[in-house]
């Protein structure tokens, strides 16, 4: 069937400047540029990944949205019309990648941070210690000591704790969804910055075994690559129940991506589809989850904290409470804007709730039940900037996870075509000629730079708040004010409107 879909983008080539070096042709992994006497664009294939424009030595390429106008119609937006055309042509669900791009309210952008004036002095982070260190893991309600004054020793044995030098962790992205080079870059950066990367559900490539103390290994419904060695070779083990971009559904890594290495890592035959079922087939209730948590704890000799990752859905607070009571040391909540390598558009764009509200509700609920100490809260989906980290921690998170932001740091342009396997930046692809484009050392440097910059920014904000340790911000909602939010949102977030004093 001939497609009636118009091109999304127009590739403009300035032939006056073009030296016909063909670098753009070589770089385009979507076949949007050909060479026919001169560089010629195949606009329909262009995804606006900017690879060609970035590497054109003459700056001869620009990419614009196709200015093709549609008859005005607020209800029948061009996007909706195009989606109908696609489905009329294919008969399939529309597949997409990355996080929800729809203009739902972004609550981060409706919260403002306090600062000190006169009576409580601000602190200069360049002169004074400004501490970001954070420990993930279950904390007891109180400590017990023994011995006499002057010779006191600690009686309480703490559950295992994982140290983070900065309260930002790289999000779960599987080897399969992203390339081995991307995984290597994340692991190297995690080690250098004193934080963690997360294998996602695709197992751990043997090249990364040496980074075990900086790696969260995931156990998802497909159980890919899960062995007792895998579980023990880690900083923390995470049971993945759900993902913000696709709550309630499973995953599918197409067989063409399952080459030799992925086959070994995931422990499935080469070329077979890697299917993650929607639910874990051994978890149909909270008791089942508890059994898996303790099975993992037994396997790891109670030396690794166990995290449970869920998508932010309507009843997230009660679910999180159940998870904590089931024995999890960490609850990871992924908001509805969280990224994905591939998800049906209907799920990504319409299911779940914003992480800001989910986080506030969970932290409140755990405090009401007096069990907030029993688990750390990690949040993601989507943390876009250090300001989001500050606000998340003030709402009650122990630390944040960044997926999309870390990909962007490595070169991703958020073109949302991860599911095609054609990533021109060597990130979301398994094609050797594309993977080779991502130099793990360089990508790790860029990741470290991003975290370093965010770390400085967080310290600057702490200083302006007059506090010198991140734990004095954690859950301190008094330091946030809402702007342009209705009372119900303010109540859920547990913050006052701007203009109200203490």
């Amino acid at each position: 069937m001939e497609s009636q879909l118009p091109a999304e983008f127009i590739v403009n080539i300035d032939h006056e400047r073009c030296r016909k070096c063909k670098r753009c042709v070589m770089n385009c992994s979507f076949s949007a540029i050909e060479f026919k006497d001169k560089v010629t664009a195949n606009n329909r294939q262009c995804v606006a990944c900017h690879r060609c424009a970035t590497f054109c030595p003459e700056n001869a390429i620009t990419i614009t949205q196709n200015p093709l106008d549609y008859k005005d119609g607020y209800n029948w937006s061009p996007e909706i019309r195009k989606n109908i055309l696609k489905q009329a042509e294919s008969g399939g669900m529309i597949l997409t990648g990355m996080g929800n791009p729809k203009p739902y309210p972004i609550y981060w952008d409706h919260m403002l941070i306090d600062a000190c004036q006169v009576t409580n002095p601000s602190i200069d982070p360049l002169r004074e210690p400004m501490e970001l260190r954070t420990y993930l893991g279950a904390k007891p309600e109180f400590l017990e000591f023994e011995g006499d004054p002057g010779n006191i020793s600690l009686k309480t044995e703490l559950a295992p704790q994982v140290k983070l030098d900065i309260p930002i962790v790289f999000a779960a992205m599987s080897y399969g969804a992203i390339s081995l080079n991307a995984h290597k870059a994340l692991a190297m950066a995690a080690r250098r910055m004193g934080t963690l990367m997360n294998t996602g559900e695709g197992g751990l490539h043997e090249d990364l075994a040496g980074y075990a103390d900086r790696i969260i290994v995931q156990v998802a419904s497909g159980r890919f690559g899960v062995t007792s060695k895998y579980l023990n070779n880690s900083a923390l083990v995470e049971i993945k129940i759900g993902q913000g971009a696709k709550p309630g559904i499973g995953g599918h890594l197409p067989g063409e991506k399952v080459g030799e290495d992925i086959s070994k890592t995931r422990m499935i035959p080469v070329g077979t589809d890697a299917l993650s079922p929607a639910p874990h087939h051994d978890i149909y209730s909270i008791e089942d989850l508890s059994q898996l948590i303790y099975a993992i704890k037994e396997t790891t000799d109670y030396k690794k904290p166990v995290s449970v990752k869920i998508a932010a859905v309507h009843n997230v607070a009660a679910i999180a409470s159940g998870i904590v009571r089931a024995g999890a040391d960490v609850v990871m909540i992924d908001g509805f804007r969280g990224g994905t390598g591939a998800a049906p558009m209907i799920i990504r764009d319409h299911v779940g709730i914003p992480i800001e509200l989910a986080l506030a509700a969970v932290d409140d609920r755990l405090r009401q039940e007096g069990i907030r100490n029993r688990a750390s809260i990690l949040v993601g989906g989507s943390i876009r900037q250090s300001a989001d980290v500050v606000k998340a921690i003030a709402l009650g998170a122990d630390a944040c996870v960044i997926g999309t932001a870390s990909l962007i740091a490595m070169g991703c342009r958020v073109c949302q075509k991860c599911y095609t396997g054609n990533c021109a930046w060597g990130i979301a692809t398994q094609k050797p000629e594309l993977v080779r484009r991502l130099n793990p050392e360089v990508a790790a440097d860029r990741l470290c730079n991003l975290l370093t910059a965010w770390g400085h920014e967080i310290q600057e904000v702490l200083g302006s708040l007059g506090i010198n340790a991140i734990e004095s911000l954690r859950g301190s909602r008094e330091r946030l004010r809402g702007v342009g939010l209705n009372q119900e949102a303010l109540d859920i977030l547990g913050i006052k409107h701007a203009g109200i004093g203490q």
Partner: protein
Amino acid sequence: MKSDGIPSGCAISGLMSEDGRRINGKKIIESIACMHDRSNGLGGGFAAYGIYPKRKDMYAFHMMYDNARAKEDTEEFFKDHFNVDKDEAIPTHRQNGISDPPILWRYFLEVPENKLEFLSERDYVAKTVMKIHSEIEGSFVASSGMNMGAFKGVGYPEDIGRFFKLEEYSAYIWTAHGRFPTNTPGWWGGAHPFTLLDWSVVHNGEISSYGINKRYLEMFGYKLELRTDTEVIAYMFDLLVRKHKLPVEIAAETLAAAFWKDIDRMEPGKKKIATAIRQVYGSTLLNGPFSIIIGHNRGMIGLNDRIKLRPMTAARKDDMLYMASEESAIREIAPDLDEVWSPRAGTPVFGTLKAGVE
């Protein structure tokens, strides 16, 4: 809420006889009066320990009432919740500079045994204090401990001291506060010390971590209704020492915890403790400028914030321990001292009643 003038911070002073000798209230008034310019007349107060020896096993409730109705309601409440051994007006002196005081009354209370089926006696008393604050309009508990009391109000501290006739009381610990309010309105209940059971706190500074300190305490059932950051300190000590049973030294360390850079260099035993404190008690860290003196029945604790953004001097002479915002306030009442020092940031100073002394 901020008054005119240059904010110079509040004044605190404390003195204690570790031998348990009783000292009358004159000295502490002289000491705090020396720092007159650190207050602005919007609040002053004192805590005194050992002042009710005849009823030392009863809870002495110092009450402030806005009106007769509040007094009636509270007395009704006391009858339902306690055995009232005695009640009387707190003696006061018509004093220039003090205007419009609330009704000031004190009660000596015992807890009936049938109330303690599911609660310890002290939990019961702490709960009733919070109940009064949240449920009885116009009624305020200035103090609720045994053999101690808080005397406070709106005015300069030396005027408040004379108003309450403190020269007629003798105590082995006295703490005092002169207030320069910037963050909360000046009202009688809002003057320092803040108390709960026998904990009392006088505080110079502002707690920038108030938000999380408050939420943490709420998790353990504390109700913070006084619109001030100082009350968290009193409740924190109650939680950490009375409920969590932490040694006092450890409790002080949680409030002004060591920096990681120092913890990383500690010897293993100390490091383990300091690390666990920060991991478990991160929400009790008091962040922001403060110097505080905490009183309790067995002693007095002075503490500064981790980077010492508020002044504090300590001194010893024989069995006496002194602490004050300024050395002058100590020299004023004890010119000849054995030892004077400025406690380091985050390093507590302890005064402890000798064993066996009552």
